[in-house]
């Protein structure tokens, strides 16, 4: 009962944030210098709010649309598939190793990248070309909340940014209010398996691990600090997760081949066919749809573990 109420409250907050954004964007942006410090510690200053933005991150694309600044996007990556309106924006490549020329060809006044070694180099290159580039961390929900505020400030949609950030921070805080596990209702133990040979699982540094915490499940590899890590198959067997979570983008019905390999039969979750498949688009990266992800994940877990 309590959990249901909690969910509506969350949904309500988001709806309010989105509605507030809609009103905001019809106003003209305020004049004057806009200065922010991005997640790489770089200070980026703009004379006025940007009107031609290139987003090199799907989460940023989603955020910009959620803030009501989607009409100012002139470039996106091939991975930016949400919301559907984003697909009409020209792509500048896959964004993993940014194609500076393609980006510059869109004549942006702002480029937003997610934080990685390659992208920090790209940001520096763009700065040399005189194009403002902002780097945002994107590992956990708190990062998205911060990015919402930062992008809100940059695009002059501060109020929308603030309420979106508040909603996300509330989502994170809500996990601490979940009922503690009891002998009758132990925490569901999960392992996120990214690759099978060698077995690669998700550890504590990643968004998926955070999601597990938000739904009250326990990632059996939470003790490893890295985002993804190679482990031995016998480690998975000995940690004995109740179910395995796999990310897949396509909606094919056939489960991946490795589950039928003899050595994977040693994993109890494989023998019992307790596998949950999550869509990569929604679950692989944190973004403004986090609440939706949490709800969906919780639902799938309950289905798998009656």
């Amino acid at each position, binding site marked *: 009962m309590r959990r249901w109420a909690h969910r509506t409250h969350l949904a309500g907050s988001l709806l309010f944030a989105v509605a507030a954004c809609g009103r905001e964007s019809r106003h003209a942006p305020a004049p004057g210098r806009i200065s922010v410090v991005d997640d790489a510690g770089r200070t980026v200053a703009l004379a006025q709010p940007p009107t031609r933005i290139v987003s090199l991150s799907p989460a940023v694309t989603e955020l910009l649309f959620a803030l009501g600044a989607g009409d100012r996007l002139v470039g996106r990556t091939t991975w930016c598939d949400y919301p559907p309106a984003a697909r009409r924006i020209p792509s500048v490549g896959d964004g993993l190793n940014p194609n500076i020329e393609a980006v510059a060809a869109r004549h942006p006044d702002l480029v937003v990248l997610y934080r990685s070694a390659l992208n920090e180099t790209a940001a520096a290159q763009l700065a040399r070309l005189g194009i403002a580039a902002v780097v945002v961390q994107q590992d956990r929900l708190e990062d998205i909340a911060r990015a919402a505020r930062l992008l809100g400030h940059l695009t002059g949609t501060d109020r929308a940014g603030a309420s979106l950030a508040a909603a996300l921070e509330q989502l994170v805080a809500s996990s601490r209010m979940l009922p503690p596990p009891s002998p009758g209702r132990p925490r569901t133990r999960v392992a996120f398996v990214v690759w099978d*040979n*060698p077995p690669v699982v998700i550890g504590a540094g990643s968004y998926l691990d955070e999601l597990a915490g938000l739904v009250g499940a326990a990632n059996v590899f939470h003790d490893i600090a890295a985002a993804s*890590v190679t*482990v031995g198959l*016998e480690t998975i*067997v000995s940690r004995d997760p109740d179910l395995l979570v796999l990310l897949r983008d396509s909606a094919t019905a056939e489960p991946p*081949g490795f589950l039928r390999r*003899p*050595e994977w039969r040693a994993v109890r979750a494989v023998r019992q066919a307790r596998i949950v498949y999550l869509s990569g688009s929604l679950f692989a990266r944190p973004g403004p749809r986090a609440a939706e992800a949490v709800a969906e994940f919780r639902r799938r877990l309950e289905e798998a573990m009656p």
Partner: protein
Amino acid sequence: MRWLGLMVVVVLALALAVVLGPAHVSLADLTTSDIVRSLRLPRALLAFLVGGSLALAGAGLQALVRNPLADPSLLGLSGGAGLGAVLAIALHVNSPWALPLAAFAGALGAMALVYRLGLVGGAELDPRILILAGVAVGAFTAAVTTALVSLSDAAELRNAFLWLWGGLSGASWDSVLLLCVYAPLPVAVLLAAARPLDLLALGEEPARHLGADVEAVKRRVYLAASLLTAAAVAVSGVIGFVGLVVPHAMRLLWGHRHRPLLPAAFLGGGALLALSDTVARVAVAPRELPVGIVTALIGVPVFVLLLRRWTAS
């Protein structure tokens, strides 16, 4: 005496591989533990078979091309195997055996190409051209593979490189059985070629005069070494260093005669890989290291130790 020592090392390596691991299994539970029976034991045996195959193939190859720096990776097979594996992933072939079969097919394709290139004048195999062709084919397939992976959108293809770096994670009783059925013929062919390889060291014509059927020997040794390497790569990715250094280490102890050297190389390579895999599984538990790194880290000091003993005597 040396053989006794080698057998002790082999038994020790296998025992450690079964007893040690990231998951704690007490000695009392060893025989009943599912982890030991389904995972550790087949993995230890597979490591032994793969390591032995690579070392034996390496020794045969070094004799065939008359170059101590020869290594099974020069055959171009790893490149072909990688390309086969990446294609299987890219085409979304979902069978559990897709990867090893595709890698094996790729390796065989590379072998056929290199063999064809190595046939000069249509009849004789020139070992020097075999090596050059192997390097060329290997480089080409590696480039195509890298291009495929970097141009593709699928993240899975990037993970294919993890597999290629070599690892025995896919070990099961099925793969052990497969190798046990497959390997004896190429192994026997190589062991039988021991004396002709001694003769070949004198040169092709002197070897002919002494009674060796040089063309048949070259063909058989090349094909057997390639088949063993192809199977090893298909099952466990590219594990370097074993095929190059184990034969040399064994030569320091057994000399150059191939009759004792070839079986010693097999046993030594098997022990080295089993030991290396144990270290790979245990050293940074719960994480696992790529086994190719460990074979180098263990193999080099051992090799240097042997070298010093030899130069001192």
